[in-house]
Protein backbone atom coordinates (compact mmCIF):
# COMPACT_ATOMS: atom_id res chain seq x y z
CA UNK A 1 0.00 0.00 0.00
CA UNK A 2 1.44 3.36 -0.96
CA UNK A 3 1.20 6.35 1.37
CA UNK A 4 -1.41 8.00 -0.84
CA UNK A 5 -3.67 4.94 -0.85
CA UNK A 6 -3.20 4.62 2.88
CA UNK A 7 -4.19 8.22 3.42
CA UNK A 8 -7.20 7.96 1.12
CA UNK A 9 -8.49 4.78 2.79
CA UNK A 10 -8.39 6.07 6.34
CA UNK A 11 -8.69 9.85 6.06
CA UNK A 12 -12.43 9.65 6.79
CA UNK A 13 -11.83 7.86 10.10
CA UNK A 14 -9.20 10.37 11.19
CA UNK A 15 -11.49 13.26 10.30
CA UNK A 16 -14.31 11.70 12.29
CA UNK A 17 -12.04 11.26 15.32
CA UNK A 18 -10.83 14.85 15.02
CA UNK A 19 -14.40 16.13 14.80
CA UNK A 20 -15.44 14.16 17.89
CA UNK A 21 -12.42 15.43 19.83
CA UNK A 22 -13.25 19.01 18.91
CA UNK A 23 -16.78 18.39 20.08
CA UNK A 24 -15.55 17.07 23.43
CA UNK A 25 -12.95 19.80 23.94
CA UNK A 26 -14.95 22.81 22.90
CA UNK A 27 -18.37 21.70 24.04
CA UNK A 28 -21.61 21.94 22.15
CA UNK A 29 -21.97 25.66 22.59
CA UNK A 30 -19.47 26.33 19.83
CA UNK A 31 -21.27 24.06 17.40
CA UNK A 32 -23.08 26.04 14.80
CA UNK A 33 -26.36 24.65 13.55
CA UNK A 34 -26.21 20.87 13.31
CA UNK A 35 -26.43 18.99 16.57
CA UNK A 36 -23.89 16.21 16.63
CA UNK A 37 -23.79 13.86 19.65
CA UNK A 38 -20.58 12.75 21.41
CA UNK A 39 -20.24 8.99 21.00
CA UNK A 40 -17.73 7.71 23.55
CA UNK A 41 -17.45 4.14 22.31
CA UNK A 42 -16.91 5.30 18.76
CA UNK A 43 -14.17 7.69 19.92
CA UNK A 44 -12.38 4.86 21.75
CA UNK A 45 -12.63 2.58 18.71
CA UNK A 46 -11.41 5.30 16.35
CA UNK A 47 -8.57 6.12 18.74
CA UNK A 48 -7.38 2.50 18.75
CA UNK A 49 -7.58 2.42 14.95
CA UNK A 50 -5.56 5.63 14.69
CA UNK A 51 -2.94 4.08 17.01
CA UNK A 52 -2.67 1.09 14.69
CA UNK A 53 -2.37 3.38 11.69
CA UNK A 54 0.36 5.39 13.39
CA UNK A 55 2.34 2.23 14.19
CA UNK A 56 1.94 1.05 10.59
CA UNK A 57 2.92 4.40 9.13
CA UNK A 58 6.05 4.48 11.29
CA UNK A 59 7.01 0.90 10.45
CA UNK A 60 6.59 1.57 6.73
CA UNK A 61 8.49 4.87 6.91
CA UNK A 62 5.62 6.83 5.38
CA UNK A 63 6.20 10.52 4.70
CA UNK A 64 6.75 12.79 7.65
CA UNK A 65 3.59 14.84 7.23
CA UNK A 66 1.47 11.69 7.46
CA UNK A 67 3.20 10.46 10.61
CA UNK A 68 2.97 13.94 12.13
CA UNK A 69 -0.72 14.12 11.38
CA UNK A 70 -1.38 10.75 13.03
CA UNK A 71 0.94 11.61 15.88
CA UNK A 72 -0.98 14.78 16.61
CA UNK A 73 -4.41 13.23 16.46
CA UNK A 74 -3.48 10.24 18.64
CA UNK A 75 -1.74 12.50 21.16
CA UNK A 76 -4.84 14.69 21.35
CA UNK A 77 -7.17 11.71 21.73
CA UNK A 78 -4.85 10.21 24.34
CA UNK A 79 -5.12 13.41 26.41
CA UNK A 80 -8.91 13.46 26.13
CA UNK A 81 -9.44 9.76 26.85
CA UNK A 82 -7.14 9.57 29.87
CA UNK A 83 -8.16 12.90 31.41
CA UNK A 84 -9.02 12.42 35.08
CA UNK A 85 -12.15 14.23 36.09
CA UNK A 86 -12.98 12.43 39.33
CA UNK A 87 -11.72 14.93 41.87
CA UNK A 88 -15.24 15.78 42.98
CA UNK A 89 -16.68 16.13 46.47
CA UNK A 90 -16.74 12.36 47.06
CA UNK A 91 -13.03 11.97 46.38
CA UNK A 92 -12.14 15.01 48.46
CA UNK A 93 -14.24 13.80 51.37
CA UNK A 94 -12.49 10.44 51.28
CA UNK A 95 -9.10 12.15 51.22
CA UNK A 96 -9.95 14.21 54.30
CA UNK A 97 -11.73 11.50 56.27
CA UNK A 98 -9.39 8.57 55.58
CA UNK A 99 -6.27 9.34 53.56
CA UNK A 100 -5.19 12.32 55.66
CA UNK A 101 -5.14 10.78 59.17
CA UNK A 102 -3.76 7.53 57.77
CA UNK A 103 -0.94 9.30 55.99
CA UNK A 104 -0.13 11.21 59.19
CA UNK A 105 0.11 7.95 61.15
CA UNK A 106 2.17 6.36 58.38
CA UNK A 107 4.66 9.21 58.80
CA UNK A 108 4.56 9.21 62.62
CA UNK A 109 8.34 9.31 62.93
CA UNK A 110 8.61 12.47 60.84
CA UNK A 111 5.71 14.06 62.68
CA UNK A 112 7.35 13.47 66.06
CA UNK A 113 10.69 14.78 64.84
CA UNK A 114 8.99 17.84 63.38
CA UNK A 115 7.13 18.40 66.66
CA UNK A 116 10.41 18.21 68.60
CA UNK A 117 12.02 20.71 66.20
CA UNK A 118 9.14 23.15 66.72
CA UNK A 119 8.30 22.74 70.41
CA UNK A 120 11.79 22.33 71.94
CA UNK A 121 13.05 25.74 70.80
CA UNK A 122 9.62 27.17 71.59
CA UNK A 123 9.76 26.14 75.25
CA UNK A 124 13.48 26.70 75.57
CA UNK A 125 13.45 30.23 74.15
CA UNK A 126 10.16 30.91 75.93
CA UNK A 127 11.72 30.02 79.26
CA UNK A 128 14.91 31.97 78.54
CA UNK A 129 12.97 35.10 77.57
CA UNK A 130 10.74 34.71 80.62
CA UNK A 131 13.88 34.68 82.77
CA UNK A 132 15.64 37.49 80.90
CA UNK A 133 13.08 39.60 78.94
CA UNK A 134 15.76 41.70 77.21
CA UNK A 135 16.74 38.60 75.22
CA UNK A 136 13.61 39.00 73.12
CA UNK A 137 15.31 41.69 71.06
CA UNK A 138 17.77 39.12 69.74
CA UNK A 139 14.87 37.05 68.37
CA UNK A 140 12.29 39.64 67.28
CA UNK A 141 12.85 43.29 66.34
CA UNK A 142 11.71 46.10 68.61
CA UNK A 143 8.77 47.29 66.48
CA UNK A 144 7.20 43.85 66.57
CA UNK A 145 7.68 43.74 70.34
CA UNK A 146 6.00 47.10 70.79
CA UNK A 147 3.19 46.03 68.50
CA UNK A 148 2.72 42.76 70.39
CA UNK A 149 2.76 44.49 73.73
CA UNK A 150 0.09 46.91 72.57
CA UNK A 151 -2.07 44.15 71.10
CA UNK A 152 -2.24 42.10 74.25
CA UNK A 153 -2.29 44.86 76.86
CA UNK A 154 -5.51 45.87 78.56
CA UNK A 155 -5.47 49.29 76.88
CA UNK A 156 -8.26 50.46 74.59
CA UNK A 157 -6.20 49.87 71.43
CA UNK A 158 -5.91 46.22 72.25
CA UNK A 159 -6.71 43.44 69.85
CA UNK A 160 -10.32 42.43 69.82
CA UNK A 161 -11.86 45.01 72.10
CA UNK A 162 -12.45 47.58 69.40
CA UNK A 163 -12.13 45.39 66.35
CA UNK A 164 -15.16 45.42 64.12
CA UNK A 165 -16.19 42.85 61.52
CA UNK A 166 -14.13 44.61 58.85
CA UNK A 167 -10.92 44.16 60.78
CA UNK A 168 -11.83 40.54 61.40
CA UNK A 169 -12.02 39.93 57.67
CA UNK A 170 -8.79 41.78 57.16
CA UNK A 171 -7.06 39.61 59.75
CA UNK A 172 -8.57 36.46 58.19
CA UNK A 173 -6.97 37.32 54.85
CA UNK A 174 -3.71 38.18 56.52
CA UNK A 175 -3.57 34.92 58.47
CA UNK A 176 -4.37 32.83 55.38
CA UNK A 177 -1.69 34.50 53.33
CA UNK A 178 0.93 34.40 56.06
CA UNK A 179 0.39 31.07 57.77
CA UNK A 180 -0.28 28.89 54.76
CA UNK A 181 2.69 30.48 53.04
CA UNK A 182 4.90 29.50 55.98
CA UNK A 183 3.63 25.93 55.86
CA UNK A 184 4.21 25.64 52.13
CA UNK A 185 7.75 26.86 52.72
CA UNK A 186 8.21 24.19 55.40
CA UNK A 187 7.17 21.61 52.79
CA UNK A 188 9.23 23.01 49.91
CA UNK A 189 12.25 23.47 52.19
CA UNK A 190 12.48 19.70 52.22
CA UNK A 191 13.92 19.84 48.70
CA UNK A 192 17.13 21.27 50.16
CA UNK A 193 17.81 17.90 51.83
CA UNK A 194 15.32 18.81 54.55
CA UNK A 195 17.49 21.66 55.85
CA UNK A 196 14.98 24.32 54.76
CA UNK A 197 12.23 22.61 56.75
CA UNK A 198 14.40 22.20 59.84
CA UNK A 199 15.43 25.86 59.76
CA UNK A 200 11.83 27.02 59.23
CA UNK A 201 10.61 24.90 62.16
CA UNK A 202 13.37 26.09 64.50
CA UNK A 203 12.90 29.76 63.61
CA UNK A 204 9.13 29.67 63.96
CA UNK A 205 9.35 27.75 67.22
CA UNK A 206 11.88 30.22 68.64
CA UNK A 207 9.83 33.25 67.54
CA UNK A 208 6.57 31.95 69.00
CA UNK A 209 8.34 30.93 72.20
CA UNK A 210 10.05 34.30 72.58
CA UNK A 211 6.80 36.26 72.18
CA UNK A 212 4.95 33.95 74.58
CA UNK A 213 7.72 34.14 77.19
CA UNK A 214 7.96 37.90 76.94
CA UNK A 215 4.22 38.55 77.19
CA UNK A 216 3.92 36.12 80.13
CA UNK A 217 6.71 37.94 81.94
CA UNK A 218 5.01 41.29 81.30
CA UNK A 219 1.82 39.97 82.87
CA UNK A 220 -0.36 39.79 79.77
CA UNK A 221 -0.67 36.04 80.01
CA UNK A 222 -4.48 35.93 80.29
CA UNK A 223 -5.01 38.07 77.20
CA UNK A 224 -2.34 36.26 75.23
CA UNK A 225 -3.15 32.65 76.03
CA UNK A 226 -6.91 33.06 75.74
CA UNK A 227 -6.22 34.48 72.28
CA UNK A 228 -3.82 31.87 70.94
CA UNK A 229 -4.82 28.64 72.60
CA UNK A 230 -7.87 27.80 70.46
CA UNK A 231 -6.50 28.31 66.98
CA UNK A 232 -3.12 27.00 68.15
CA UNK A 233 -4.63 23.52 68.14
CA UNK A 234 -4.98 23.74 64.37
CA UNK A 235 -2.16 26.12 63.54
CA UNK A 236 0.69 24.57 65.51
CA UNK A 237 -0.37 21.06 64.51
CA UNK A 238 -0.54 22.12 60.87
CA UNK A 239 2.97 23.62 61.06
CA UNK A 240 4.22 20.37 62.61
CA UNK A 241 2.58 18.39 59.80
CA UNK A 242 3.98 20.64 57.09
CA UNK A 243 7.42 20.29 58.65
CA UNK A 244 6.93 16.51 58.65
CA UNK A 245 6.24 16.52 54.89
CA UNK A 246 9.40 18.58 54.35
CA UNK A 247 11.45 16.17 56.48
CA UNK A 248 9.96 13.24 54.56
CA UNK A 249 11.05 14.52 51.15
CA UNK A 250 14.40 15.63 52.57
CA UNK A 251 14.95 12.11 53.89
CA UNK A 252 13.83 10.65 50.56
CA UNK A 253 16.57 12.68 48.85
CA UNK A 254 19.34 11.86 51.33
CA UNK A 255 18.55 8.16 51.70
CA UNK A 256 16.70 6.95 48.60
CA UNK A 257 17.23 3.27 49.46
CA UNK A 258 16.88 1.00 46.45
CA UNK A 259 15.31 3.69 44.25
CA UNK A 260 17.05 6.43 42.37
CA UNK A 261 16.91 9.78 44.15
CA UNK A 262 14.36 11.01 41.62
CA UNK A 263 12.03 8.02 42.01
CA UNK A 264 12.36 8.29 45.75
CA UNK A 265 11.47 12.00 45.65
CA UNK A 266 8.43 11.43 43.44
CA UNK A 267 7.17 8.65 45.72
CA UNK A 268 7.68 10.78 48.82
CA UNK A 269 5.75 13.70 47.30
CA UNK A 270 2.90 11.44 46.29
CA UNK A 271 2.66 9.93 49.74
CA UNK A 272 2.75 13.36 51.37
CA UNK A 273 -0.11 14.73 49.27
CA UNK A 274 -2.96 13.77 51.68
CA UNK A 275 -1.07 15.46 54.53
CA UNK A 276 -0.76 18.62 52.45
CA UNK A 277 -4.50 18.67 51.72
CA UNK A 278 -5.05 18.13 55.45
CA UNK A 279 -2.82 20.86 56.74
CA UNK A 280 -4.12 23.42 54.27
CA UNK A 281 -7.66 22.79 55.52
CA UNK A 282 -6.45 22.95 59.12
CA UNK A 283 -4.80 26.30 58.45
CA UNK A 284 -7.96 27.71 56.89
CA UNK A 285 -9.87 26.60 60.00
CA UNK A 286 -7.15 28.13 62.17
CA UNK A 287 -7.31 31.45 60.30
CA UNK A 288 -11.10 31.56 60.65
CA UNK A 289 -10.93 30.86 64.39
CA UNK A 290 -8.09 33.33 64.86
CA UNK A 291 -9.92 36.11 63.07
CA UNK A 292 -13.49 35.63 64.31
CA UNK A 293 -13.37 33.69 67.60
CA UNK A 294 -10.00 34.24 69.27
CA UNK A 295 -10.24 38.00 68.94
CA UNK A 296 -13.67 38.21 70.61
CA UNK A 297 -12.57 39.38 74.02
CA UNK A 298 -16.10 39.75 75.35
CA UNK A 299 -16.47 35.96 75.49
CA UNK A 300 -16.11 34.54 79.01
CA UNK A 301 -12.70 33.00 79.65
CA UNK A 302 -13.96 29.60 80.89
CA UNK A 303 -15.89 29.19 77.63
CA UNK A 304 -12.82 30.05 75.57
CA UNK A 305 -10.60 27.63 77.46
CA UNK A 306 -13.22 24.85 77.25
CA UNK A 307 -13.55 25.29 73.49
CA UNK A 308 -9.77 25.37 73.19
CA UNK A 309 -9.41 22.12 75.14
CA UNK A 310 -12.06 20.50 72.96
CA UNK A 311 -10.27 21.67 69.82
CA UNK A 312 -6.95 20.21 70.94
CA UNK A 313 -8.66 16.97 71.92
CA UNK A 314 -10.53 16.80 68.61
CA UNK A 315 -7.39 17.37 66.54
CA UNK A 316 -5.37 14.80 68.45
CA UNK A 317 -8.14 12.18 68.37
CA UNK A 318 -8.73 12.83 64.69
CA UNK A 319 -5.12 12.29 63.80
CA UNK A 320 -4.67 9.21 66.01
CA UNK A 321 -8.00 7.41 65.67
CA UNK A 322 -9.87 8.48 62.51
CA UNK A 323 -9.93 6.08 59.58
CA UNK A 324 -8.25 3.13 61.29
CA UNK A 325 -10.67 0.58 59.94
CA UNK A 326 -10.63 -0.02 56.22
CA UNK A 327 -13.83 0.93 54.51
Amino acid at each position, binding site marked *: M*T*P*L*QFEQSYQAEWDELAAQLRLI*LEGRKNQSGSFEPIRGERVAAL*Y*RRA*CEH*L*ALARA*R*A*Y*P*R*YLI*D*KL*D*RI*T*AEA*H*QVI*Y*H*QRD*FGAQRLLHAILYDFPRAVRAHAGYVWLSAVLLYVPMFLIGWLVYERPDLILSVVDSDTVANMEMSYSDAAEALGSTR*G*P*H*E*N*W*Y*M*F*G*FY*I*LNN*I*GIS*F*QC*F*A*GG*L*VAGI*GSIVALLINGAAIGAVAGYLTERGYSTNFYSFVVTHGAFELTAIVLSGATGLR*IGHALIAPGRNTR*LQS*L*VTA*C*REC*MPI*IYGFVIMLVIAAAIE*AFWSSARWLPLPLKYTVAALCWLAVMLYLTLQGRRAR
Partner: protein
Amino acid sequence: MLDSVVAAETPEGILLELRPAGLSARFCAFAIDWLIRIAILWVAMFIFGLLGGAGIGLWLVLLFVLDWFYPVYFELGRKGATPGKRALDLKVVMDNGLPITPAASITRNLLRVADLMPAGFGAAVFCMLVRPDGKRLGDLAAGTLVVHQPRPAPKATLEMVAPIAPARALSPRDQAAVISLAARAPSLTIERLDELAALARSVQGDEARGSSEVTRRVLGVAQWLLGRRS
Protein backbone atom coordinates in the same frame (compact mmCIF):
# COMPACT_ATOMS: atom_id res chain seq x y z
CA MET B 1 19.77 13.95 15.17
CA LEU B 2 20.32 16.34 18.05
CA ASP B 3 16.91 16.37 19.54
CA SER B 4 15.32 16.63 22.93
CA VAL B 5 12.29 14.50 22.10
CA VAL B 6 11.04 12.33 24.94
CA ALA B 7 9.14 9.21 23.89
CA ALA B 8 6.21 8.13 26.05
CA GLU B 9 4.54 4.79 25.52
CA THR B 10 0.77 4.65 25.73
CA PRO B 11 -1.26 1.64 26.88
CA GLU B 12 -2.11 1.12 23.20
CA GLY B 13 1.53 0.40 22.54
CA ILE B 14 2.42 3.43 20.47
CA LEU B 15 5.15 5.92 21.25
CA LEU B 16 4.04 9.52 21.64
CA GLU B 17 6.71 12.08 20.92
CA LEU B 18 6.85 14.78 23.60
CA ARG B 19 8.91 17.88 22.91
CA PRO B 20 9.99 19.43 26.22
CA ALA B 21 9.91 23.21 26.36
CA GLY B 22 13.10 25.07 27.15
CA LEU B 23 13.92 27.97 29.41
CA SER B 24 13.05 30.84 27.06
CA ALA B 25 9.58 29.60 26.11
CA ARG B 26 8.74 28.87 29.72
CA PHE B 27 10.05 32.22 30.86
CA CYS B 28 7.80 34.02 28.36
CA ALA B 29 4.80 31.98 29.49
CA PHE B 30 5.60 32.77 33.10
CA ALA B 31 5.92 36.48 32.33
CA ILE B 32 2.50 36.53 30.62
CA ASP B 33 0.90 34.72 33.56
CA TRP B 34 2.58 37.09 35.96
CA LEU B 35 1.21 40.11 34.12
CA ILE B 36 -2.29 38.58 34.10
CA ARG B 37 -2.11 38.01 37.84
CA ILE B 38 -0.91 41.54 38.45
CA ALA B 39 -3.76 42.87 36.31
CA ILE B 40 -6.36 40.82 38.22
CA LEU B 41 -4.99 41.98 41.57
CA TRP B 42 -4.90 45.57 40.38
CA VAL B 43 -8.53 45.52 39.27
CA ALA B 44 -9.54 43.67 42.44
CA MET B 45 -7.81 46.34 44.50
CA PHE B 46 -10.24 48.94 43.17
CA ILE B 47 -13.31 46.76 43.65
CA PHE B 48 -12.42 45.50 47.11
CA GLY B 49 -11.12 48.93 48.06
CA LEU B 50 -14.75 50.07 48.16
CA LEU B 51 -15.45 47.56 50.95
CA GLY B 52 -12.90 48.93 53.40
CA GLY B 53 -11.14 46.64 55.89
CA ALA B 54 -13.14 43.57 54.91
CA GLY B 55 -12.22 44.25 51.28
CA ILE B 56 -8.53 44.23 52.09
CA GLY B 57 -9.00 40.91 53.83
CA LEU B 58 -10.74 39.45 50.80
CA TRP B 59 -8.04 40.92 48.60
CA LEU B 60 -5.38 39.15 50.68
CA VAL B 61 -7.31 35.88 50.31
CA LEU B 62 -7.42 36.50 46.55
CA LEU B 63 -3.68 37.18 46.56
CA PHE B 64 -3.12 33.89 48.35
CA VAL B 65 -5.36 31.94 45.97
CA LEU B 66 -3.81 33.51 42.85
CA ASP B 67 -0.31 32.98 44.19
CA TRP B 68 -0.68 29.27 44.83
CA PHE B 69 -3.66 27.99 42.87
CA TYR B 70 -3.85 30.04 39.66
CA PRO B 71 -1.68 27.52 37.79
CA VAL B 72 -3.39 24.54 39.45
CA TYR B 73 -6.81 25.69 38.26
CA PHE B 74 -5.73 26.08 34.64
CA GLU B 75 -3.53 23.00 34.50
CA LEU B 76 -6.43 20.82 35.62
CA GLY B 77 -8.73 22.40 33.05
CA ARG B 78 -9.35 21.00 29.61
CA LYS B 79 -6.44 22.73 27.94
CA GLY B 80 -3.93 21.64 30.58
CA ALA B 81 -2.16 24.99 30.52
CA THR B 82 -2.29 28.47 32.03
CA PRO B 83 -3.16 31.33 29.64
CA GLY B 84 0.53 32.20 29.37
CA LYS B 85 1.47 28.67 28.42
CA ARG B 86 -1.43 28.49 25.99
CA ALA B 87 -0.21 31.65 24.29
CA LEU B 88 3.11 29.89 23.61
CA ASP B 89 1.52 26.55 22.70
CA LEU B 90 2.87 24.89 25.83
CA LYS B 91 1.16 22.30 27.96
CA VAL B 92 1.82 20.48 31.22
CA VAL B 93 1.60 16.69 31.08
CA MET B 94 2.79 13.78 33.20
CA ASP B 95 6.11 12.11 32.35
CA ASN B 96 4.22 9.40 30.48
CA GLY B 97 2.30 11.88 28.35
CA LEU B 98 -0.93 11.49 30.29
CA PRO B 99 -2.94 14.53 31.37
CA ILE B 100 -1.71 16.01 34.63
CA THR B 101 -3.28 14.70 37.86
CA PRO B 102 -4.50 17.03 40.63
CA ALA B 103 -1.84 15.81 43.09
CA ALA B 104 0.96 16.37 40.58
CA SER B 105 -0.30 19.84 39.71
CA ILE B 106 -0.46 20.86 43.37
CA THR B 107 2.98 19.40 44.06
CA ARG B 108 4.69 21.19 41.22
CA ASN B 109 3.09 24.50 42.09
CA LEU B 110 3.78 24.34 45.84
CA LEU B 111 7.39 23.45 45.14
CA ARG B 112 7.79 26.67 43.19
CA VAL B 113 9.02 28.02 46.53
CA ALA B 114 12.02 25.70 46.32
CA ASP B 115 12.62 26.74 42.71
CA LEU B 116 12.75 30.37 43.82
CA MET B 117 15.83 29.74 45.92
CA PRO B 118 18.42 31.13 46.29
CA ALA B 119 17.06 34.16 44.41
CA GLY B 120 15.11 34.94 41.24
CA PHE B 121 14.26 31.33 40.39
CA GLY B 122 17.97 30.43 40.51
CA ALA B 123 17.34 26.76 41.24
CA ALA B 124 14.72 26.52 38.49
CA VAL B 125 16.95 28.16 35.87
CA PHE B 126 19.94 26.01 36.78
CA CYS B 127 17.88 22.84 36.76
CA MET B 128 16.22 23.63 33.42
CA LEU B 129 19.53 24.46 31.74
CA VAL B 130 21.23 21.32 33.02
CA ARG B 131 18.51 18.84 32.17
CA PRO B 132 17.74 17.95 28.55
CA ASP B 133 14.04 17.64 29.37
CA GLY B 134 13.96 21.16 30.85
CA LYS B 135 12.38 20.24 34.18
CA ARG B 136 12.50 22.45 37.22
CA LEU B 137 12.61 21.06 40.76
CA GLY B 138 8.82 21.08 41.05
CA ASP B 139 8.53 19.09 37.82
CA LEU B 140 11.07 16.57 39.06
CA ALA B 141 9.17 15.96 42.27
CA ALA B 142 5.75 15.86 40.65
CA GLY B 143 6.85 13.79 37.66
CA THR B 144 5.54 16.32 35.17
CA LEU B 145 6.83 17.73 31.91
CA VAL B 146 6.13 21.02 30.11
CA VAL B 147 5.88 20.24 26.40
CA HIS B 148 5.36 22.07 23.14
CA GLN B 149 2.02 21.29 21.59
CA PRO B 150 2.60 19.55 18.27
CA ARG B 151 2.05 21.88 15.33
CA PRO B 152 0.49 20.70 12.09
CA ALA B 153 3.18 19.94 9.51
CA PRO B 154 2.61 21.53 6.10
CA LYS B 155 1.51 18.91 3.65
CA ALA B 156 3.71 18.61 0.58
CA THR B 157 1.50 18.52 -2.48
CA LEU B 158 3.76 19.18 -5.49
CA GLU B 159 1.03 17.82 -7.72
CA MET B 160 2.46 19.51 -10.77
CA VAL B 161 5.44 17.13 -10.91
CA ALA B 162 4.76 14.09 -13.07
CA PRO B 163 5.58 10.77 -11.38
CA ILE B 164 8.66 8.92 -12.63
CA ALA B 165 9.54 5.32 -11.79
CA PRO B 166 12.80 5.03 -9.80
CA ALA B 167 15.77 3.82 -11.83
CA ARG B 168 16.76 1.18 -9.26
CA ALA B 169 15.17 -0.75 -6.42
CA LEU B 170 15.06 1.47 -3.33
CA SER B 171 15.26 0.22 0.24
CA PRO B 172 12.53 1.49 2.61
CA ARG B 173 15.12 3.83 4.12
CA ASP B 174 15.99 5.34 0.76
CA GLN B 175 12.32 5.66 -0.15
CA ALA B 176 11.67 7.51 3.09
CA ALA B 177 14.62 9.82 2.40
CA VAL B 178 13.38 10.72 -1.08
CA ILE B 179 9.82 11.26 0.13
CA SER B 180 10.90 13.44 3.03
CA LEU B 181 13.03 15.51 0.69
CA ALA B 182 9.92 16.11 -1.43
CA ALA B 183 7.94 16.97 1.70
CA ARG B 184 10.55 19.53 2.72
CA ALA B 185 10.84 21.02 -0.76
CA PRO B 186 8.44 23.97 -0.19
CA SER B 187 10.47 25.15 2.80
CA LEU B 188 13.86 25.06 1.06
CA THR B 189 15.49 27.58 -1.27
CA ILE B 190 15.87 26.47 -4.88
CA GLU B 191 19.67 26.25 -4.54
CA ARG B 192 19.55 24.13 -1.41
CA LEU B 193 16.90 21.90 -2.92
CA ASP B 194 19.11 21.36 -5.96
CA GLU B 195 22.08 20.50 -3.73
CA LEU B 196 20.09 17.96 -1.77
CA ALA B 197 18.48 16.47 -4.87
CA ALA B 198 21.94 16.09 -6.41
CA LEU B 199 22.83 13.72 -3.57
CA ALA B 200 19.93 11.51 -4.67
CA ARG B 201 20.64 11.78 -8.38
CA SER B 202 21.14 8.02 -8.74
CA VAL B 203 17.46 7.32 -8.15
CA GLN B 204 16.24 9.14 -11.23
CA GLY B 205 18.29 7.25 -13.82
CA ASP B 206 19.45 10.05 -16.11
CA GLU B 207 22.82 11.26 -14.78
CA ALA B 208 23.64 13.73 -17.53
CA ARG B 209 20.94 16.35 -16.96
CA GLY B 210 21.24 19.82 -15.48
CA SER B 211 20.71 20.34 -11.78
CA SER B 212 17.17 21.81 -11.95
CA GLU B 213 16.09 18.96 -14.19
CA VAL B 214 17.61 16.43 -11.75
CA THR B 215 15.64 18.06 -8.96
CA ARG B 216 12.42 17.86 -10.93
CA ARG B 217 13.00 14.18 -11.69
CA VAL B 218 13.90 13.32 -8.06
CA LEU B 219 10.65 14.97 -6.96
CA GLY B 220 8.90 12.94 -9.64
CA VAL B 221 10.35 9.76 -8.14
CA ALA B 222 9.00 10.90 -4.79
CA GLN B 223 5.54 11.23 -6.34
CA TRP B 224 5.84 7.74 -7.74
CA LEU B 225 6.88 6.40 -4.34
CA LEU B 226 3.92 8.15 -2.74
CA GLY B 227 1.68 6.14 -5.02
CA ARG B 228 0.86 8.40 -7.99
CA ARG B 229 1.10 6.65 -11.31
CA SER B 230 -0.33 8.87 -14.00
